[in-house]
């Protein structure tokens, strides 16, 4: 894409751009930060499905049967699998972000440790939700 096509670059001509993402080596800090946004957008799709499920339940048995049929199909299970991991990641890493907002955990070793803790907690939480869903 040429520089003048996008609104942000109007008037900047051919001046050099600052180094972009691809010049940096991926690290736990940057990758987990990117995934926080990606899972946030992903969770939006999941939340819309949950809203649909409630609206269908209020509408009646027929409308509910349609969305229930989708969610209990193999593809629906795949969507729920992705949504559960995405949700648990965003929740656990979100608590990590809130701790940063409160002023804690900025040392490099702490950032790495809390990142790994958030990942492990998200995995366990997702497995816990699967267990609750399957057992009941």
């Amino acid at each position: 894409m040429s520089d003048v096509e996008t609104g942000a670059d109007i008037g900047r001509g051919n001046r050099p751009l600052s180094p972009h993402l691809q010049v940096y080596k991926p690290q736990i800090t940057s990758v987990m930060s990117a995934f926080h946004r990606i899972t946030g957008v992903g969770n939006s799709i999941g939340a819309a499905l949950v809203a649909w499920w409630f609206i269908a339940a209020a509408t009646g048995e027929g409308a509910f049967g349609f969305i229930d049929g989708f969610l209990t199909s193999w593809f629906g299970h795949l969507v729920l699998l992705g949504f559960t991991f995405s949700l648990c990641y965003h929740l656990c890493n979100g608590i990590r972000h809130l701790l940063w907002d409160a002023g804690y955990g900025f040392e490099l070793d702490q950032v790495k440790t809390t990142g790994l803790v958030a990942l492990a907690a998200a995995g366990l939480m997702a497995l816990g939700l699967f267990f609750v869903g399957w057992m009941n």
Partner: protein
Amino acid sequence: MTMLTPRARVRGLGSARSGTEHWWSHRLSAISLAILAPFFFIPFAIALGKPWVEVVSIYKHPFHAIVAAAFMLTVFWHMRLGLQVVVEDYIHAPALRTGLLIAVKLGTMLLGFAAAFSIAMIAFSV
């Protein structure tokens, strides 16, 4: 040395004309959701995949209905603030940017209200 008047400093507003409300509201909704999450998702995981009659009977319970409605309203508010930032960061074409920002604001509010209203309908149905 600041160029701001004392009044402008107190208000905390720069050239963007809005201050920290967006950031603060995003964090406040995040804390609310983190607290509500187990109370919403455990009954939800139990209800998901059950027949309609059983799902309705779960959400007829005032506790589950109130938690679910509060969670849905808060989640779509949190989503509105988050998606707004994503659009503002990555979409630069003016018409598309404005269109998407309007769609995010109206869409999330519509879904949040519709979900909460539906839960209330289930709870109040005979």
